[in-house]
């Protein structure tokens, strides 16, 4: 299918458009986000390499595939708006933060490269906002809350739910800031709008994250140990 490049009259969403396309951010902002994301990915490759268990390879593939699939399901939130899973916290709880970061980068990159969902110039920003914030920041919060609740075994589901919600809202804040710095739209307008919508979408993120973890806990609870045994290293 050929589309007329640059035709502004064209419906920018052909079916689904979920992730920021090129043009939303200026090239310098996008470049900074690319640099930041590449740096984090380099660290992720090094650290997951150090503690990576071969048994976890299939889990890595399955988690990334599941997150890709789940991201295709837009659920309805109020007011003619939808949202979809990001999955960063879910991935990190199972895979550990660094391997999860690589998995999320892979999902978002395939979406951009193959499905034209999200631009290539802004791919670094998209990986950061939808992946890294959840896998690193969200996971840190998850560990913190789980610790307060008496450990991961006890507090896994509530901690993951809260972290999942916060990661979606934090991703929206990051996107709003990048849009504002790019001069696309003023922060005082976009920030409340982005946070408002994503506070609702985050509930969906929390529900799906908790449901997926509860399902794994009921069927293959040993998968949780795969990360903990490696994370101690």
């Amino acid at each position, binding site marked *: 299918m*050929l*589309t*007329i*490049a*640059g*035709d*502004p009259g064209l419906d*920018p969403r*052909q*079916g*689904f*458009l979920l992730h920021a*396309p*090129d*043009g*939303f951010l200026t090239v310098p902002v996008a470049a900074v986000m690319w640099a930041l994301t590449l740096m984090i990915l380099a660290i992720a*490759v090094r650290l*997951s390499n*150090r503690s*990576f*268990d*071969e048994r976890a*390879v*299939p889990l*890595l*593939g*399955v*988690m*990334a*595939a*599941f*997150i*890709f*699939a*789940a991201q*295709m*399901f*837009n*659920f*309805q939130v109020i007011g003619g*708006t*939808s*949202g*979809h899973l990001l999955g960063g916290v879910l991935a990190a709880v199972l895979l550990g933060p660094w391997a999860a970061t690589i998995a999320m980068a*892979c999902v978002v990159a*395939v979406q951009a490269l*193959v*499905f*034209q*969902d999200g*631009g290539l110039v802004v791919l670094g920003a998209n990986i950061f906002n939808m992946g890294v914030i959840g896998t690193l920041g969200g996971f840190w919060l998850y560990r913190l809350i789980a610790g307060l609740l008496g450990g991961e075994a006890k507090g896994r589901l509530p901690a993951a739910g809260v972290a999942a919600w916060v990661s979606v809202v934090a991703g929206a804040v990051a*996107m709003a800031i990048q849009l504002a710095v790019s001069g*696309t739209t003023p922060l005082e307008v*976009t920030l409340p*709008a*982005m946070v408002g919508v*994503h506070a609702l979408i985050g509930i969906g993120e929390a529900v799906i994250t908790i449901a997926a973890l509860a399902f794994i806990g009921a069927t293959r609870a*040993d998968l949780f140990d795969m990360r903990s*045994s490696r994370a*101690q290293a």
Partner: protein
Amino acid sequence: MNRPAEDRGASANGPQRRWWLVGLAIAALVVIVLAPLASPDPDGLERVGGDQGFLDRAREALVNILPGYAVPFIDDPVISTIVAGLIGVALVFGAMWLLGRFLARRPSGPQAGPR
């Protein structure tokens, strides 16, 4: 650095060895059952972009492969979405598997040797 001894028994025996096939089947099922039911409404960013009028800044992709999670030559929108989604699931799984093998196999210290 002391690494706790790992119990390798759980994943070494028969039926559990291919458990990842079950995981993959779940991902495929999500595509087949849920993706066609996805809400067509704009998502969070798109909604805000529409409300605040910056959606038209979106630039077309230079190269379209399977844009919008649809296979261009399949007319039925449901089948088209499902096929595109299954291609994506396979690609992501394959890419991550290869990447994982690469990560897991790289020598990480004196204890890392040929499998």
